[in-house]
C-alpha cells in the first residue's frame, strides 16, 4: 500500500498484492538474468579470449531465453532410488529463500515490499534457509557425490554465516539501526568531515567489513574459490548432479538470483543502496531512479563476485574452514571492536 | 641369435668393448654366480642377462642393491612360439580355423638364449646414466610361475598383473593378480601366440594392397626434401 502511494492512486489489496508479486519476480529474475548474460556469458568469455554466445539475438543477448527454453524441454529425470518428494521440493526451498531475501530489500524511499525494523537481521536469517534445500537435494538424490556436495555446502554455509553476520554488525553499529531503509538513510545523510556530497557510504569507513562480507558472500554463493560443494572436477556439481530439466533450471536461477540478492545486500549496506551520490532529488523521483541506481550498484558488486569466480582455483574444504575461523572471524571481530570504540568516541 | 659372452666382441670387432656394461655384467656374475645363464652386450646400447628361474627374485635384489639400478622400467614377457595364424595376411578362406599349433621346437629364443617357450623380461636402469639392464628369465612351460619382484621394486606390481593376464604367468608373493585391463571373467591369455586376434578372424585383412611409395622413389635421382 505504501509503496504505491507515489502514483497517487489507491489500489485494492489484491491489486497491490499482485503488483508486489510481479515486482518481486522482476527483482529476482532481472539481476539473475543480467548476471548470467553480462558476467557468465560475456565477461567470462572476454576474459577467456573468446566471444561467448553470438548467435541468438544481437551479441547473443537472447541466449538466455534459448537456454531457458532448452532446459524446459529436457526430460526431468529422477533417480530410481531417490526420495522423490524431497527431490522435487529441494529446488523450491532454495528458490523460496532467495525470493524472501528480496522481501526486505529497499529499492527507493517508498519502493519496498516490507520495511521491517529488523530488516537486515531477517535477511541474514532467511539466507540460511537455502542450506536446508541444498542438504535435502544432496540427500534425496541418492548419489554419493550429491551427498558429499550437500554436506560440504552445509558445512561451508554455516561456517561463513558467522563472518557475514559479524561483518554486518559493524555497519549496524555505525548506522544505529537494523532497518535497511535506516541504513540507506544513514549513508545518504551522513557526511565525511563536513563534506556531504556523496553522503557517507559505509564502504569508506567499513571497508574491512566490506571485504569480509564479499568473501563470505562468495562462500555463501558457492562461487569459486569456494565452490567445492559444486566442484565439477571433484564431485561433479555436487548436490545438483542428479538434477535435470526444469529443476536444474530452478537451481541455476536460484544460484544467480541469490548472487543478485547478496549483491543487493552488499550494495545497500556498503554502497549507499538506492541513494544517488552528489544529487539530492525528491522522494518521488527517487522512487523511479532508486531501483535503477541499486541495479547499477548490484552490477558493480556482481562484477567483483564473478571476477573472482573466473580467476581463482578453489580451496580445499579444510582450508576453507581454517580461512573462515582463523582469519575472517577474527578480522570481523576486530572490526566490530574498532567500530564500537570509534562510535563511542565520536 | 643367441650369442655367447665371449663371442660378443668377436661379432662386432669394429666397436670397442663397452667397459661400463662389462662392469655392470660383472656385478651380476659376481653376486649371482652360476645363476647368470647367458648374457649379451650390444656395445653402446644394451645389456641382456638371462638368469635362472629360481634366482629371479635374487636377481632383482642384486640389480637394485649391488648394481645400483634403482629405477624400475618395465616387466613383461615374450612368447617365443610362432603364431599359428601367421600374420593374418592371407584371406581367411585359405586357412582352417583354428589352425594347428606349431611344434614346440619352433619356439626360437632371441638374445641371451633360453629353453622355455615363455620368457619374462624386465628392464631396470640406473638413473642419470644410459645404463640399463634387460633381465630375462625362463618360465617353465608346464607351470608358468615365477617369484615376485614387488618387494624390491614396488612398481612391478602392476606389470606383474599385466603379465599375468596377458601371458598367464603367475607371480608368487604378489597377492593382487586381478585383471588390469580385461573383464574379470575373461578366458585365455591374449598375448600368447595361440590366442587369435578376433578382429582379424571376423573380418580378414585384405592383405597388403597398397604400399606407400617412398619419397623420391619414383624420381630417378635420390630423393631430397627441399624447402621451397
Amino acid at each position: 500500500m505504501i509503496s504505491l502511494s507515489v502514483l497517487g492512486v489507491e489500489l485494492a489489496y489484491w491489486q497491490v498484492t499482485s503488483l508486489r508479486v510481479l515486482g518481486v519476480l522482476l527483482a529476482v529474475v532481472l539481476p539473475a538474468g543480467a548476471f548470467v548474460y553480462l558476467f557468465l556469458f560475456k565477461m567470462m568469455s572476454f576474459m577467456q579470449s573468446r566471444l561467448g554466445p553470438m548467435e541468438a539475438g544481437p551479441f547473443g543477448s537472447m541466449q538466455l531465453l534459448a537456454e531457458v527454453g532448452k532446459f524446459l524441454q529436457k526430460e526431468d529425470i529422477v533417480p530410481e532410488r531417490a526420495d522423490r518428494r524431497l527431490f522435487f521440493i529441494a529446488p523450491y526451498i532454495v528458490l523460496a529463500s532467495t525470493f524472501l531475501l528480496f522481501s526486505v530489500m529497499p529499492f527507493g524511499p517508498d519502493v519496498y515490499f516490507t520495511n521491517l525494523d529488523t530488516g537486515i537481521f531477517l535477511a541474514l536469517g532467511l539466507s540460511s534457509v537455502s542450506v536446508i534445500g541444498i542438504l535435502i537435494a544432496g540427500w534425496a538424490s541418492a548419489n554419493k557425490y550429491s551427498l558429499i556436495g550437500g554436506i560440504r555446502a552445509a558445512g561451508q554455509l554455516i561456517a561463513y554465516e558467522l563472518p557475514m553476520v559479524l561483518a554486518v554488525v559493524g555497519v549496524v553499529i555505525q548506522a544505529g539501526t537494523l532497518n535497511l531503509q535506516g541504513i540507506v538513510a544513514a549513508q545518504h545523510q551522513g557526511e565525511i568531515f563536513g563534506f556531504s556530497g556523496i553522503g557517507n557510504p559505509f564502504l569508506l569507513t567499513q571497508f574491512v567489513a566490506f571485504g569480509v562480507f564479499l568473501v563470505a558472500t562468495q562462500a555463501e554463493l558457492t562461487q569459486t574459490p569456494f565452490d567445492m560443494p559444486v566442484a565439477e572436477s571433484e564431485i561433479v556439481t555436487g548436490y545438483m548432479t542428479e538434477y535435470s530439466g526444469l529443476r536444474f533450471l530452478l537451481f541455476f536461477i536460484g544460484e544467480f538470483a541469490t548472487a543478485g540478492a547478496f549483491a543487493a545486500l552488499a550494495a545497500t549496506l556498503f554502497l549507499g543502496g538506492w541513494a544517488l551520490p552528489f544529487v539530492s532529488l525528491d522522494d518521488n523521483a527517487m522512487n523511479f531512479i532508486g531501483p535503477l541506481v541499486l541495479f547499477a550498484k548490484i552490477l558493480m558488486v556482481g562484477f567483483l563476485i564473478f571476477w573472482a569466480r573466473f580467476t581463482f582455483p578453489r580451496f580445499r574444504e579444510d582450508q576453507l574452514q581454517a580461512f573462515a575461523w582463523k582469519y575472517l572471524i577474527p578480522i570481523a571481530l576486530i572490526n566490530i571492536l574498532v567500530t564500537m570504540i570509534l562510535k563511542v568516541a565520536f | 641369435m643367441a650369442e655367447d659372452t665371449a663371442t660378443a666382441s668377436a661379432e662386432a670387432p669394429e666397436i670397442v668393448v663397452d667397459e661400463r656394461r662389462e662392469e655392470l655384467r660383472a656385478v651380476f656374475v659376481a653376486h649371482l654366480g652360476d645363476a647368470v645363464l647367458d648374457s649379451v652386450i650390444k656395445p653402446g646400447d644394451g645389456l641382456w642377462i638371462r638368469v635362472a628361474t629360481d634366482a629371479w627374485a635374487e636377481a632383482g635384489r642384486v640389480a637394485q642393491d649391488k648394481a645400483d639400478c634403482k629405477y624400475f622400467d618395465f616387466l613383461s614377457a615374450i612368447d617365443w612360439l610362432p603364431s599359428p595364424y601367421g600374420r593374418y595376411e592371407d584371406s581367411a578362406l585359405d586357412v582352417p580355423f583354428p589352425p594347428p599349433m606349431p611344434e614346440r621346437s619352433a619356439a626360437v629364443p632371441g638374445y641371451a638364449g633360453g629353453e622355455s617357450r615363455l620368457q619374462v623380461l624386465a628392464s631396470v636402469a640406473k638413473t642419470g646414466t644410459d645404463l640399463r639392464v634387460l633381465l630375462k628369465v625362463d618360465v617353465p612351460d608346464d607351470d608358468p610361475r615365477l617369484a615376485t619382484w614387488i618387494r624390491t621394486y614396488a612398481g612391478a606390481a602392476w606389470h606383474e598383473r599385466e603379465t599375468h593376464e596377458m601371458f598367464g604367468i603367475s607371480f608368487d608373493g604378489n597377492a593382487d593378480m586381478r585383471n588390469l585391463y580385461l573383464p574379470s571373467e575373461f578366458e585365455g591369455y591374449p598375448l600368447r601366440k595361440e590366442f587369435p586376434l578376433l578382429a582379424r578372424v571376423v573380418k580378414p585383412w585384405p592383405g597388403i594392397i597398397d604400399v606407400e611409395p617412398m619419397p623420391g622413389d619414383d624420381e630417378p635421382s635420390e630423393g631430397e626434401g627441399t624447402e621451397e
Partner: protein
Amino acid sequence: MTLTDAQQLGYINAQAADGRVNVELETDDGMVLNMGPQHPATHGTLRLVARLDGEQVTSADVMCGYMHRGYEKLCEVRSYPQVTTLVNRIDWLGSFANEVPFILAAEQLMEVEAPPRAQWIRTLLFELSRIANVSLFIGDLALQLGAQTPAFYAFRDREFVLNQIESVTGGRFHPNFDRIGGLKDDLPKGWIAETKAAMVRLRAFCDEMEGLVYGNEIFQSRTRGVGVIPAAIAQSYGLSGANLRGSGVDWDLRRDANVGLVYDQLDWKVWTHPDGDSYSRCWVRLQEVREATKIVDQICDGLPSGAIMAKVPRIIKVPAGEAYIATENPLGQMGYYVVSKGDTGPFRVKIRSASFNNISIAPWLLRGVYVPDIITILASLYFILGDIDR
C-alpha cells in the same frame, strides 16, 4: 565361426557385467566412492574406487582397461610402417613423440640411420608435441583445481603449435609422419619463421601461467606438500618425466641416453625440483615447456640442409634381433621393446608407456589424503588414458 561368435559374446557379456558392478550406497566400514569411469577428473575412462572415512581416503584402487585396445597384440600383425599409425593413438596429445622411439628401434635393428636433417626435424617435431601436450596440461591442471580461465588460455596458445604441426604433417593430432629412415616430407615454405613466432607466444603463455596459476596462493596451498613422492619411491615405481624430476632425480633421457635425436648438439637444461610434491611436478613441467621452446628456436636456427630420407628398401623387412629404445616423451619415458624375426612386421612389441608406471603409484600416493587432493594428485601425475591402457 561359431566359436568366434561365442567368444565375442562372452567378452561383451563379461564387460557388461563388470560395468554393472557399482558400489552400493551403504557400506559397513566407511563410504566407498566410485570415481569414474566417467568422471571429469580422470579425463578419460579411468575408474578410481576410494574408500572414504569422512573426506579422507583410507584406501584407493585404480581400475583401468576401459580403453584397452590391445596395441601389443595388434602390432604383431602389422607391418613396421603400419605400426606408427597405431602408436600415434597412445598419447594422443603428443602423437609424434610416440612414433619416434618405435622408428628408432626399427632403425637400430635395420642398422639404418636417418640423415642429419631428418634427425633435426624429428627433434623439432618431438619438442613441438611436447609443447602441445604439456601446455594443455597446465591449463587442465588449473581447471581441475577449479580455475576455469587458464584452460582457455592453454587451448588458445596451444593452437599455434598445433597449426605448425599440421602444416608440416597434415595432421593436427595424429601426424603419422615418421618413417623408417627419415621423414615423410620436408618442412613447408615459411614454416621456420612462423614457428619462431609461435614460440614467442608460447613463452609469453608460460609467463602468464606462472603468474596466474603458479603464483596464486590458493594454487600453492592446494599443491604444496600434497602427494609427496620421495625419490626412492619414485624410482622403484618407475615414474618418469616430470614426476621423477619433480622428486629431485636428475635423469632425462634426452640428455643421458640420447639415441637418434640431436639433443647433444643443443644448449638446454634439465630442470629438477627437490620437493617431490604436486607443485614441484607441475613446476617442472612448466619449465620444460619453456626449455622446449628454446630447443625449437635453436633447431630452427641450426637446421642443416640435405636429404630427409635414407635409402631404405621399398618393402621393409627388419633383420632378426631385439632392440629397446626409450625416449623422454611429454608424459615421461616411452620405450618400445621390439623383437624382430626378420619379417615385415615385429614378432613382439612391448610398449613401455610412461603413464602406466606413473599412475601405478596412485594407490600408494592416495592413501590418507582428502577427496579434493585426489584431484590434485591425479592432475599433477598427469596421465593420458591411452597411454595407460594402450
